[in-house]
C-alpha cells in the first residue's frame, strides 16, 4: 500500500534488497578513508623527497608543475570536477553524532536567537497566518 508520498515499494524488492544490504557486514568498507589516504600520500611524498635530496643534493630546483599543483586548493579542484574523489575521501564522518547538514539559516537569513524569540511561542497556525497575511 502506498503512503502519503505516493511511493509504493514492493515487499519482494525490499526483502531482496535487505539480503544484499546485510552482506555489507561481511566485507570491509570499499572506500579508503580520507585520513588513511592523506597519511599514505604524506608518507610516500616524504620518502620520495628524502630520496631525491639524497640522490640529487644540489640539483633540486622548484618544478613549475609542482608549484602549479601545490597552488591549487584540492577542494576547488574537487568542486570543479577536476578530481573525482570518492565521497568518503572528502567527507569522512569524524563522529556520526557530529555530522550535520548545512545550516538552513543561510537560506532564510535569520539567526537562531531571532527565530527562537519570534517563533517558539507561536503555534503552527499563527506562523502560517502571519506568513500569509
Amino acid at each position, binding site marked *: 500500500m*502506498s*503512503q*502519503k*508520498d*505516493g*511511493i*509504493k*515499494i*514492493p515487499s519482494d524488492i*525490499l526483502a531482496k*534488497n*535487505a539480503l*544484499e*544490504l*546485510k552482506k*555489507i*557486514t561481511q566485507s570491509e*568498507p*570499499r*572506500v579508503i578513508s580520507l585520513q588513511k589516504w592523506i597519511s599514505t600520500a604524506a608518507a610516500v611524498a616524504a620518502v620520495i623527497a628524502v630520496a631525491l635530496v639524497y640522490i640529487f643534493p644540489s640539483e633540486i630546483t622548484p618544478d613549475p608543475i609542482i608549484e602549479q599543483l601545490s597552488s591549487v586548493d584540492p577542494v576547488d579542484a574537487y568542486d570543479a570536477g577536476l578530481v573525482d574523489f570518492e*565521497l568518503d575521501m572528502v*567527507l569522512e*564522518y569524524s*563522529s*556520526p*553524532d557530529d*555530522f*550535520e*547538514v*548545512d*545550516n*538552513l*539559516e543561510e*537560506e*532564510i537569513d*535569520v539567526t*537562531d536567537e531571532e*527565530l*527562537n524569540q*519570534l*517563533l*517558539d511561542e*507561536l503555534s*503552527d497556525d499563527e*506562523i*502560517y497566518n502571519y*506568513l*500569509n497575511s
Partner: protein
Amino acid sequence: MHANEQLIWSAYNDGNFEKAFEAIVDSQQEQLLRLILRMVGDQDEAMDVLQETFIKIWKNIKKFKGDSKWSTWTYRIASNEALMHLRKVKRMNTTSDPIVTDQLEASSYFDGDEALVALYRALDTLPAKQRLVFQMKYFDELPYTEISQITGTSEGALKASYHHAVKKIEKEVVQFKLLEDSNIKGEL
C-alpha cells in the same frame, strides 16, 4: 521505546553489531529508501544512495553514542547522502531540478495521482534542503524536535523554513492548476 529500537539496542548492548545492523536494515530500509527516492527521483540512483547510506551506518555503528534515536541517526546519514548525491552527481547546489520529479513519476515505485505530481512539481521550486525539511514534516510526519536533531537546525528555523515552503508550494500548486486548466480548455 519502539519495539524496533529495543531490538537494535538489545543486540547492540550485547556487542552483536551485525545483528544490530540487520535489525536496522529490517526496520528502516523502507523509510530511508522513501526519503532518498523523494530527493533523488531515479530509483536506481536511490538504491545506490541507500547502499552508501548503509555502508556509512555499518562503518560508524560502533561510534553511535545513543544521543538520539537510531532512526534519527540513520535519517541524518541518509539525508546527507541524498543531498551529497544531488550536489555531486546531479550538480545541484541550492535548487532542485524538475528532472527529479520526472524521474520519480517515471519510477515503477511511484503510485501517486495528479495532485501529488503537482505537489512534487511545486517542491521542485524549493531549495533541496528546504524540500527535505518539508518532506520529513509533511510526508513522514516527523515532529520538529526530531527534524531538528536530524538536520542540526533549531526548531525555530525549521518552523520558519517549513511555513515558507508551505506558502511557496501553495502558490506554485495554484499556478500549476491554472496552467493545467487553460491547457484543458485549449484542447477542448
